[in-house]
């Protein structure tokens, strides 16, 4: 048992953190949030050059064979910086889904382009019913000659507005099937929806969209299995980002509590503030250590269905808790756009829904236990 990070991992963390703190201040984050694209192409190019996007690339495709926990390190730092980028949609959601279900050729081609920063992708799974279950996927795919024709609407597709390609989960005769679709294909209409996360959640309408039979990820009817297998890893990666957000909220609140004076003393001297903050630290410490544990289990090839659900429900609730107390301790300034704690308060609510909300995961745990 050795619960420390290797020195390479410490260097990785440091380099990601330093880059983000230098290139993407919270001021910059707010600016990006308010843009239509919701990301900075310039910064994306830079992080591609720095090799961040290679983190999931297996050795056989020219990667360094990083363990899964290294992805977590990057996600934590992205979470601390509240960095808006297509890293989650492209590298995590799409990249891991391709790794799970794609052909060798697809992996080589798509992952290669992702790594070079030349391809943005989005995963289109949910629909109007907003169900996390297989039954929620009803966009239809009908075979017509050598093409499939897709009809239906996808909702909550993250980064569809900037993606080059979409992975679309559709209902084919044999069951759920994943399609690789050009985001600019005829018949696709994409609209960004305004969210508390000020992120790129999109509605994507498919009106007789033609996709070649060759552009499947996995076999027809195999789509749900691939999504489920990828989901556990996607969850853990997202939790890395959220735990990073917890850490930033905690640190900036502690700093504020030491510095801000009321009644002539730092507010951090008040016992109630101390108790709030001890609860925040406890929420963080229980979350971060469990994050590492589950990430390690993935590296050990253990089944983490139950644990990934436990982690997501834990982090959903604790991120909300920590950021909410953070705003409360900041007082008035905490609610203003000028201060940074609000960035995390808003993200905590937004990310609660990513890859399953708490009630969904509680039920998954119960199903596994009983």
């Amino acid at each position, binding site marked *: 048992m050795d619960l420390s990070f290797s020195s390479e991992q410490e260097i990785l963390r440091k380099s990601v953190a330093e880059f983000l703190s230098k290139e993407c201040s919270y001021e910059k984050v707010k600016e990006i949030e*308010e843009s239509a694209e919701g990301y900075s192409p310039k910064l994306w190019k830079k992080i591609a050059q720095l090799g961040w996007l290679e983190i999931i690339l297996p050795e056989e495709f020219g990667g360094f064979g990083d363990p899964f926990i290294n992805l977590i390190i990057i996600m934590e730092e992205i979470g601390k910086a509240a960095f808006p980028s297509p890293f989650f949609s492209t590298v995590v959601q799409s990249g891991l889904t391709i790794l799970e279900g794609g052909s060798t050729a697809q992996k080589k081609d798509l992952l290669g382009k992702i790594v070079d920063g030349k391809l943005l992708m989005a995963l289109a799974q*949910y629909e109007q*019913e*907003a*169900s*996390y*279950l297989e*039954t*929620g996927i009803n966009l239809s795919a009908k075979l017509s000659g050598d093409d499939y024709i897709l009809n239906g609407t996808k*909702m*909550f597709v993250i980064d569809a507005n900037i993606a080059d390609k979409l992975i679309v989960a559709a209902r084919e005769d044999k069951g759920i099937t994943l399609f690789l679709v050009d985001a600019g294909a005829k018949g696709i209409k994409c609209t960004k*929806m*305004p*969210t*508390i*996360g*000020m992120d790129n*959640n999109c*509605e994507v309408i498919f009106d007789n969209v033609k996709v070649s039979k060759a552009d499947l990820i996995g076999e027809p009817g195999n789509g749900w299995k691939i999504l489920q297998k990828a989901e556990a890893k996607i969850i853990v990666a997202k939790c890395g980002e959220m735990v990073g957000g917890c850490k930033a909220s905690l640190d900036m609140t502690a700093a504020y509590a030491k510095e801000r*004076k*009321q*009644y002539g003393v730092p507010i951090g001297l*008040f016992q*109630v*503030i101390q108790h709030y903050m001890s609860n925040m630290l406890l929420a963080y410490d229980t979350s971060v250590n469990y994050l590492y544990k589950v990430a390690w289990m993935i590296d050990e090839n253990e089944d983490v269905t139950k644990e990934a659900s436990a982690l997501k429900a834990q982090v959903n609730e604790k991120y*909300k808790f920590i950021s*909410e107390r953070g*705003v*409360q301790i*900041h*007082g*008035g300034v*905490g*609610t*203003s*756009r*000028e201060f940074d704690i*609000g*960035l995390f*308060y*808003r993200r905590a*609510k*937004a990310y*609660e*829904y990513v890859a399953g*909300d*708490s*009630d969904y995961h509680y039920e998954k745990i119960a199903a596994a236990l009983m």
Partner: protein
Amino acid sequence: MDFKLTEKQKALKREFDQFFEEVMKDAPPEYGRGGLEGVYATPEGFEFHLQVSKKLGEKGWLSRAWPKECGGEGAPLIEQLLFNESRESHRAPGVDLFGHGMFAPTLIIAANDEQKERLLTPLAKGKVSYCQGWSEPDSGSDLASLQTTAIKDGDNYIINGQKIWTTGGHRAECMFLLARTNPEEKRGKGLSVFHLRMDLPGITVRPILYMDGKHLYNEVFFKDVKIPAKDLIGTENEGWKLTRDTMNFERSGVGFFVEGREDLKELVDYVKTTKRNGKYLAEDPIIRQKIAKLFIDLEVGYTLAYKIAWLQGKGGLSFAASAASEAKVFGSELAERIANYATEIMGLYGQLSDSKWAPMNGSMVESYQFCMGITVAAGSSEIQRNIIAWTGLGLPRF
């Protein structure tokens, strides 16, 4: 023990309800979300607020509770409660939180006859709007440490300093200000209350955007702003005491609970008409339990508000003071809970703000953000809890 309204009270409530129902037919969409946002976030919203205010002024309802010698009807507090309940359950504007809610009571207690005539009349008619100049950057919950000065200079006072968190400072016509008239004194002593216009030379208003980018709050800077001495309210240097007296006016918190009831009604409609995984959300036992819990909180909170109003009306202020803090803590934290539960129940839709896709017009996700402004404002939950312990339970002050 009798919770019944008299026939007269019931009739009054019906009259209020009819008025607000009628008025709200023309409301711009931001009023679906209630709170300060409707009034201050957009020019349209503020314009509508002023229109309603005038109508209320015509009816004489803005001053009903004022003493007769101040131009009111001396209506009992319970009728004021019914008015507030009706207005807030319709999410209607028209009452100026600062002008009617806080400055008018101050004037009633402390103004001289000339001031009453000059300042109360426009308020009664709904023809003026106010903001409040209290908080400063270095005095959040600790109001007594104010630094903005108002120095007497002949027949004038010269104001220098800065206020912060001035809600609606970018829209209001006037301000009532708490400033230090005796710079030798510290903390609670040497403060005075003033009326002033916001268009005076030397006043600069700078927006403080809310975390979602909306504009409600401001910083207000004073650079050698000159106001006539006749706009001093009450006795010089006794402003802190006056401010504290004002704080104890109508504090039942009924608004939290009637607004919450409207939210719950809409939420119940939503879950009864929305399907997920082949079933109505209303069939999901987890969702059912969340809704039941909110119902209970609203029931008990609403009843507490009535108790407070009744006690205030009876003059039972010592319980009422503590209970009013309880209602504020409970009501503001309940608003947070409602917003969190509602956005949880909506699933992925819970994150959507104002748009065609957003359930309940995005009001719950808005509330999830704005509720934080309430738990920290006008005596944070922390301060309120100390007050409860001190005044409600007699625990020692520190």
